[in-house]
């Protein structure tokens, strides 16, 4: 009966959305005239810009239009970032669990990915990427993605890139960011693998996505776009409309804070709140299929080009830089983890090499287009060694059963990358610096760049993300616990989640 109710609720929400969209497609007369005259100049869906744009931008600047090359690159990036979750992350994680929990791992990733994608298109995108306050966007502006496409005029709204006058269709931006939101939630699953109840996973994900992912994404990434900066007098006001961490000036190219630290901390909290797996520390919990883990890690590497180089929003110099850095730092981390393990643990393992790759990918994420090639060498090598410590020495200290080391790799690697971005972004260390003045789009000079100052800003961003994610995660786990309970009974956990939760087995040999 309860299941029927849940299904009906879901159906009702979806139908309600369709109704909202139908209303939107029949706009009021006065609204239609405004939108018909002006090509919508919307940076990541800023409603205020819609009214302001015709007055100030239209006469002076050429009519903004989408760039087809950039759009093509973003479509490809989006598709390969999707591949990072399903199947890459699912296989990477799945290979590390025991055979009896393989399908539960795959299912949790598969369904979480789909759930977050749906929520993203209902209210998540609006909450993260529309103008609101410094913490949240506005949940109504793009509710059910209304206004992305105007059926009466055939006009698509546009999303800003990092260059003045260069746009991509906002609907492409929505899709690209959807894959980020979804994979971030999926990453958490590794920390509570092999024991968390499937229904509890879905409740937790809905809450954590809404109250942790969306606001952090808003705080770090939401801004009014380069074209909003027209003169020095109003630049302060324009910056004031951006997210809090963006206003601080923290650099996060593709999601060191938003994705990796965010997920890593939620995973650690989960490992504590959900508790240890039965028999943890007493029974062998060896990975059941490391070749699958290797395949997953390699697909992640490929998909990460979309993740990092796609985060340039354009297919130009910075996409190229992010691409090369993602390539190089990962290779460095594979080597440093492998040699580190060989030296300290005796043998260079396949799981170690695959873990090193992910550690390097995580660490280079905030730095991808923000550091030079030298920075990629350094960040990759350092991340491999620090994350090796993260899953050994540090793991023993935290005394939690973080099953697949989400904290040790993603949070530790993410923090490492976020802080080092502040160092290697410096022009004096071969980094490109950041845009100091968006009115003229000029970069900071080597003389003006303060490494300690930037690292401090990065640290503030990291600190806020850690606290925010941890608090929301803790409450979300507790709510899931109250509603359905976090775990299966002991005998069912021993039997394995595949048969108990999903009624099937991975392998019938």
């Amino acid at each position, binding site marked *: 009966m309860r299941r029927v109710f849940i299904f009906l609720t879901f159906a009702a929400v979806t139908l309600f959305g369709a109704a909202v969209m139908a209303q939107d497609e029949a706009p009021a007369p006065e609204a239609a005239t405004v939108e018909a005259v002006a090509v919508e100049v919307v940076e990541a869906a800023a409603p205020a810009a819609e009214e302001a744009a015709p007055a100030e931008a239209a006469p002076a600047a050429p009519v903004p239009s989408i760039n087809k090359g950039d759009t093509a690159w973003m479509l490809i990036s989006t598709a390969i970032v999707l591949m990072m979750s399903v199947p890459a992350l699912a296989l990477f994680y799945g290979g590390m669990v025991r055979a009896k929990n393989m399908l539960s791992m795959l299912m949790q990733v598969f369904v979480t990915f789909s759930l977050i994608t749906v929520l993203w298109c209902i209210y998540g995108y609006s909450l993260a990427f529309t103008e609101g306050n410094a913490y949240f966007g506005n949940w109504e502006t793009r509710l059910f993605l209304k206004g992305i496409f105007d059926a009466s005029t055939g006009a698509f709204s546009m999303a800003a890139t990092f260059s003045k006058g260069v746009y991509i269709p906002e609907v492409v931006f929505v899709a690209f960011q959807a894959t980020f939101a979804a994979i971030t939630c999926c990453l958490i699953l590794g920390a509570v693998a092999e024991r968390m109840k499937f229904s509890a996973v879905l409740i937790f994900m809905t809450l954590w996505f809404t109250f942790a992912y969306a606001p952090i994404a808003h705080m770090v990434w939401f801004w009014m776009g380069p074209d909003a900066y027209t003169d020095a007098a109003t630049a302060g006001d324009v910056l004031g409309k951006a997210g809090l961490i963006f206003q601080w000036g923290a650099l996060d190219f593709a999601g060191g804070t938003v994705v990796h630290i965010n997920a890593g901390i939620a995973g650690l909290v989960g490992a504590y709140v959900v508790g240890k797996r039965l028999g943890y520390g007493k029974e062998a919990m060896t990975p059941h299929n490391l070749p699958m883990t290797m395949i997953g890690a390699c697909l992640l590497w490929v998909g990460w080009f979309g993740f990092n180089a796609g985060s340039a929003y354009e297919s130009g110099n910075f996409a190229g830089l992010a691409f090369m850095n993602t390539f190089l730092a990962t290779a460095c981390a594979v080597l440093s983890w492998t040699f580190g393990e060989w030296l300290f643990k005796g043998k260079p393992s396949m*799981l170690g090499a695959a873990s090193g790759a992910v550690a390097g990918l995580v660490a280079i994420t905030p730095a991808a287009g923000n550091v030079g090639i030298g920075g990629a060498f350094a960040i990759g090598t350092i991340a491999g060694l620090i994350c090796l410590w993260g899953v050994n020495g540090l793991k023993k200290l935290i005394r939690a059963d973080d099953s697949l080391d989400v904290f040790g790799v993603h949070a530790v690697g993410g923090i490492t990358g976020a802080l080092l971005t502040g160092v290697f972004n410096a022009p004096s260390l071969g980094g490109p610096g950041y845009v100091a003045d968006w009115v003229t789009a000029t970069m900071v000079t080597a003389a003006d760049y303060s490494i300690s100052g930037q690292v401090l800003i990065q640290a503030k961003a990291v600190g806020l993300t850690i606290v925010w994610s941890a608090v929301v995660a803790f409450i979300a786990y507790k709510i899931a616990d109250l509603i359905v309970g976090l775990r299966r009974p002991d005998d069912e956990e021993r039997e394995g989640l595949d048969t108990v939760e999903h009624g099937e087995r991975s392998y019938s040999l």
Partner: protein
Amino acid sequence: MKLVTAIIKPFKLDDVREGLSAMGVQGMTVTEAKGFGRQKGHTELYRGAEYVVDFLPKIKIEVAVPSEKVDEVISAISKAASTGKIGDGKIFVTELSNAVRIRTGETGSEAL
């Protein structure tokens, strides 16, 4: 009659089978087994987690032979399975009170 049970390294199975066939043994039973003796197990390391694996994969061969052939069988197995390194395995010999060939009903040495 005697039952000779040999525990050997898996990759030595073919050598042992050839050695026994060459001296006229016509049948044997082979089982994949796990165990440990003086060789002990080994450790496996998965990221930070270290597991001691006590039981190593081995092959168990069972051969039933007439009593007069038992020494020859033991030396054939020893010769074929030996590498000189720890973990080569062991041979156990037990008394066999009877044997029956199911198809014909023959018993004793006739059935071997």
